[in-house]
């Protein structure tokens, strides 16, 4: 096991310079609503060797994937429909990836408006007031909760969380993620484990 990990590490370091040929995709391993794992995986075709970087991530406030606006992200494969560095929505801002809508396991309930994101401003900053929970400030572990999206932490003036959003963003662009920004259909996908 240790040898495999070492080989993976060596291979990853050796291949930094040839990132243009990489083919990457997201995976999300649901464990709890506030402590799951988002990974970026990539290969250098035709080599089957697979490389991975992972971050703590959250999703939902319930583990019933069929509960709209509460349940975590439904299992299965997703297409990615866009990526923005300065998305300026009303509820979600900053560096985001937009995911396709998805039926949950009952085959009848559709989850919509799904993203990978954090809590930051459109300009990738932090807006932290004295409120208990500012929507664009990462204050505490409870910020991993979402209404269904995948959420990553980032540092803020009021809490020293790791820069997982920034690392995921750079990893995505350096190792096989699309260079496109805005709404675009690209082959890079997400798999959510059941």
């Amino acid at each position, binding site marked *: 096991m240790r040898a495999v990990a070492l080989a993976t590490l060596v291979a990853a370091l050796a291949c930094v310079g040839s990132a243009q040929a990489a083919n990457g995709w997201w995976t999300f391993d649901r464990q709890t609503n506030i402590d799951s794992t988002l990974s970026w995986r990539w290969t250098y075709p035709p080599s089957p060797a697979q490389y991975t970087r992972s971050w703590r991530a959250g999703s939902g406030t319930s583990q019933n994937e069929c509960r*709209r*606006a*509460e349940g975590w992200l439904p299992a299965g494969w997703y297409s990615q429909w866009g990526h923005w560095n300065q998305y300026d929505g009303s509820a*979600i801002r900053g560096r985001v990836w937009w995911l*396709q*809508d998805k*039926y949950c396991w009952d085959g009848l309930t559709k989850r*919509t408006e799904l993203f990978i994101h954090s809590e930051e401003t459109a300009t990738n900053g932090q807006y932290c007031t004295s409120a208990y929970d500012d929507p664009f400030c990462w204050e505490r572990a409870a910020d991993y909760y*979402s209404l*269904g999206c995948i959420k990553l932490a980032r540092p803020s003036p009021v809490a020293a969380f790791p820069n997982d959003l920034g690392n995921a963003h750079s990893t995505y662009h350096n190792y096989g993620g699309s260079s496109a920004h805005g709404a675009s259909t690209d082959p890079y996908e997400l798999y959510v484990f059941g």
Partner: protein
Amino acid sequence: MALNKLSLLAIVLALAATACGAAREAPAPQSAAGPRGLYTVGADVFGLASGPVRLATPPVAPLAGWLTPAAVPSPDGRYLAYNAWKELRHDDPALSWSDQGIGRGDPLATPSVRLYDTSDESDRVLADGAFSLAWRGDGALAYFKGAERDYRAAVVYEGDVFVRASLDADPVKWTPARGRYIVVAWAGGTLVAYREREGEALDVLAFDGPGRMRVLAADSALVALSPDGRQAFVEQGPAEGRPTVRVVDVATGRQAAKLDLTRIEPAVGAVGYAGDWHGDQVVASSASGLAIFRIGPGTITFDQNLRIPSRGLSEPRFADASGRHVTAWASTPSGGVLFECDRTAGGCTRFTPLPHARGVHGFPVWRRTFYNPSRPLQEG
């Protein structure tokens, strides 16, 4: 001393049976009557005064889930308005859209609001490209209608809320701007709906007439309206800060009462939308089953948490005037299950009417209750 011990034992047993213990769960005995209230098994509807009926298609609202009822009886009991969903191409939840050859803008399904008339057993489309509806006590009907008829891949399904003063009246647009709305209920003459934003973020809205929209509760969801329709019991989950429930005056938006859910029994956790308010009691789904609250002047008091082992109960309703019995439903891999819980005995009975029913495309069949959440209302 002996009396004290007996009293203590009685208290412990009472707590175990109700507030702090897991509710016993038993399948309905062969001789048991069916579930109370109105419910569907696929397209089959039970509980109507006219007897069981089969609708043209199962009542489902995939773009709303159970934020709003799948079907709503008219106040006079004659009609059943319901949500329908016609897939234009199958969408396999295990596969990505790319892997299924689904491209941006491809039409995937058409939602519609349909109307079943118990007087002549007719079943017709009332509004195509529409979903989520609310009947007012005087028969006015509100619903959301998409700007386009079809729900399409990677296109946010936006539209407007329309109100018909009666079934024969022309629809009047009540929204000031196009958006993602989900109609829920009437609170007297005020229409209550959701505005959905990125990430399925919800705001509870109040419409006082055409173009007169206001936010009643931001980043919140509706549990229930008071019997007189003057107040709304709303919830916020942990994604919006401390989990709380609040009572809000519908006319003014003023907060009348608030309860921090982190200060009550931890098993409650947070509560879900689509519950019920009867008398001074409110029932809502909780993280571990069902939570019951009592509403007083300016106060919300936690009353009871019924722990029920299941994937989570949805749309709990008081089943009788005393508030002792509560109905709800849950989804399981083998299909939907209906529950009736006795708060005093601390137990629930499971019902699986039409146990061999099958859903579409191999998915489990839905068994789900339906109701009219508008207030005030004399349900037919």
